[in-house]
C-alpha cells in the first residue's frame, strides 16, 4: 500500500499522522487516519462530500483538535491549538474562500496580520515601500501578473488565488494546505492556479491539495490520497493509478486499492 513511501525513504517525512480520529457528537468524521507527508511533495486529497477532507485540513491547520491520535512534525509529537501554532511550525493555509479583504491592496492583503513596520521617531508606522516591493517579488517568483498596488476588489479569480498563495510565502513554509483552489474559477484561471502550485513545488514547498477536479490532481500531484466516509481507502503514486480507479475509490465502486 505504501509503495511510494518506501521508494522515497531518502526524502524526510515532514508530517506523520498516526491513527487520527475526529468525532462531532455521534458523527465520526475521521476514523483512524494514518498518513505521511514528505518534504516538498504535492499530495492530492480526494473524496466525496462528507468524506472528511475539510476536517482533516482543519486539524492540520490548527482549527480543530483531533479526538484521538497523534501528529508528528519532523519526528516530534506536536499539537496545534490555534491556527497561529500551525503557522509558526511552517504550515500555511489557503482557505476555500481565500480570506481576502476587497478594499485593501494586494500587498496589504499579503501582509495582513503580519504588517512590516518601521520607526518614525517614536512611532511604529507601516513600511509600505517594503511591503509593496516584497509582495512584488513574491508575485514575480510565482510568475503571476498581479500588481501589489491593485485593490483585490478589481481582480480576477486567478489573481485572487495568487494573492492568497503569495500570503503563504511570507514565512517560507514547509507545507501549504489548499482547500479547493480551482473551484468556481474559469478554465484559463485554473491553469494559472495549477502553475502557481508547480512553482511552489519547484521552491521545495510541500502542498496538500483538496480538489474535486480529477484532471487537476493528475496534472500537479505526486501522490493521491482518497478518503471515503472518514477512512483512508487509497494512498498511491500518481503513476500507479488512473482517473478511473480514483473515481471508483471515491464513489465506493472499488473497495480499496
Amino acid at each position, binding site marked *: 500500500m505504501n509503495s511510494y513511501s518506501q521508494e522515497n525513504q531518502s526524502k524526510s517525512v515532514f508530517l506523520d499522522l498516526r491513527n487520527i480520529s475526529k468525532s462531532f457528537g455521534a458523527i465520526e468524521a475521521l476514523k483512524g487516519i494514518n498518513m505521511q507527508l514528505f518534504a516538498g511533495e504535492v499530495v492530492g486529497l480526494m473524496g466525496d462530500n462528507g468524506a472528511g477532507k475539510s476536517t482533516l485540513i482543519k486539524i492540520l491547520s490548527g482549527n480543530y483538535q483531533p479526538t484521538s491520535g497523534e501528529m508528528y512534525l519532523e519526528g516530534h509529537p506536536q499539537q496545534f491549538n490555534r*491556527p*497561529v501554532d500551525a*503557522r509558526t511550525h511552517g504550515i500555511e493555509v489557503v*482557505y476555500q*474562500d*481565500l*480570506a*481576502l*479583504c*476587497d*478594499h*485593501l491592496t494586494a500587498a*496589504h492583503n499579503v501582509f*495582513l*496580520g*503580519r*504588517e512590516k*513596520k518601521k520607526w*518614525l521617531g517614536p*512611532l*511604529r*508606522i*507601516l513600511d*509600505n515601500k517594503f511591503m*509593496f*516591493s516584497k*509582495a*512584488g*517579488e513574491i*508575485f*514575480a517568483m510565482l510568475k503571476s501578473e498581479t*500588481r*501589489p*498596488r*491593485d485593490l483585490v476588489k*478589481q481582480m480576477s479569480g486567478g489573481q485572487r488565488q495568487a494573492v492568497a498563495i503569495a*500570503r503563504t510565502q511570507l514565512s517560507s513554509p514547509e507545507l501549504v494546505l489548499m482547500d479547493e483552489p480551482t473551484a468556481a474559477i474559469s478554465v484559463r484561471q485554473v491553469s494559472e492556479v495549477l502553475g502557481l502550485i508547480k512553482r511552489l513545488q519547484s521552491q521545495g514547498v510541500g502542498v496538500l491539495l483538496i480538489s474535486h477536479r480529477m484532471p487537476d490532481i493528475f496534472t500537479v500531484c505526486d501522490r493521491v490520497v482518497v478518503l471515503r466516509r472518514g477512512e483512508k481507502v487509497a494512498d498511491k503514486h500518481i503513476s500507479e493509478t488512473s482517473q478511473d480507479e480514483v473515481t471508483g475509490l471515491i464513489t465506493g465502486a472499488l473497495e480499496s486499492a
Partner: protein
Amino acid sequence: MTDSSLTKAIDLQTHSVWQQLYRSQPFWVTIAAIGLCVVLSWAGTDSRGEQVFFTAQNFNNVALNFSFIGIIAIGMTAVIITAGIDLSVGSVMGLSGIATGLTLSSGYGVEAGIAAGLLTALACGLVNGFLISYVGLSPFVVTLGMLSICRSLALVVSNNKMFYEFGPDEDLFVSIGGGSYFGIANSLVLMLILTIFLGFMLNYTAWGRHLYAIGSNENAATMTGVPVKAVKMSAYLFCSLTAGMSAIMIVGWMGSVTNALGMIYELRVIASAVIGGADLMGGVGSAYGALIGSFLVELIRNGLLMAGVDPYWQGTFVGLFIIFAVALERIRSHRSS
C-alpha cells in the same frame, strides 16, 4: 523578469490620479462644496444688495457649527469603516457635557471638569465596544440602547437643571471652547488636528489597515491573525472620545449646558460621514471625507438660511443630499466595475 521590469511592476498602478479622483467620493463632495460656495456668494445678498454669505462673521459661524459635528464625524468614520455604527454619540455628548458642567459648577478646576467629560465618554465607549466586540451583539442595537441610557442618565444627573456657572476656572474653560487661535476657532483647530491624526492612522499604521480589513471581511481578518476584537473596541472608544471632546468644546462656547445637549446630533454626524464617502457596508471611508462631508452639510443648512428659506425645509434638503450622495456612489462604482 529583470530587476528593472520588476520595479516597474511594483510601482505600477492600474489607475491614473484622475481615475482615482473620479472614483473618490470626497473629491466630488469637495467640488459640490465649492460650487455651492460660488452660488451662495452670488445669491447670498440681502434686500439692500449687501453680501451676507461671504462675510467673516458668517464664515466664522459656519466654521464653528461644522466643527462640533465634524469632530464626532471623525470618530464615526473610524467606526463605519469597520462596518459598524454608533447611534449613541449625541447622547454621549449630552451626558459628557452634563458631567463637565456638574463638576465645574461644584467648584472643581478646569482639568477636573475636562477629565470628567472625557472619562464619561470613554466609559460609554468602553461599554459599547465591549458588548459589540467581545459579546458579539449588533452595533445598531447596542448603541441604540446606549443612546437611550445616556440621555436618561443626563436627566437623572442634572435633575433637569441648566449649568451655567463654571466655578473658579470659568474664564479659562469658556476660552477653551469659545476662543480662537490666530483667528481660527479652537474647535476648528481641534477638528483639523483630529482629521490629520485619523488620516495618518488610517494610512500609515497597522491599526488603520486593520480597520479597513475588518470592514471588508471580518472573517478573513480573524483568520490572518488580526486582533479583531481589540481593534473594534478601540474604534468605539475613539468615537465616544470624540463625542466627549465635542461636548467640552460646545459647552465652553455656549457658556451653559442642559441635558438636551447633542439631541439628534447622531443623525447629522452619520449623515456627514456618509456624504463624505464612508460606506455603511464597511471597508471604505477617509478622514478628509469626514471633514468635507460635515462642511457640506453645514453649508447646505447655512445657505438655505441665508437664502431666506424657511428653516423647516432644512431636514428635507439634507436628507435629499444624503440619498443623492449614496446613489451617486453606487452609480460610479457600477460604471467603473
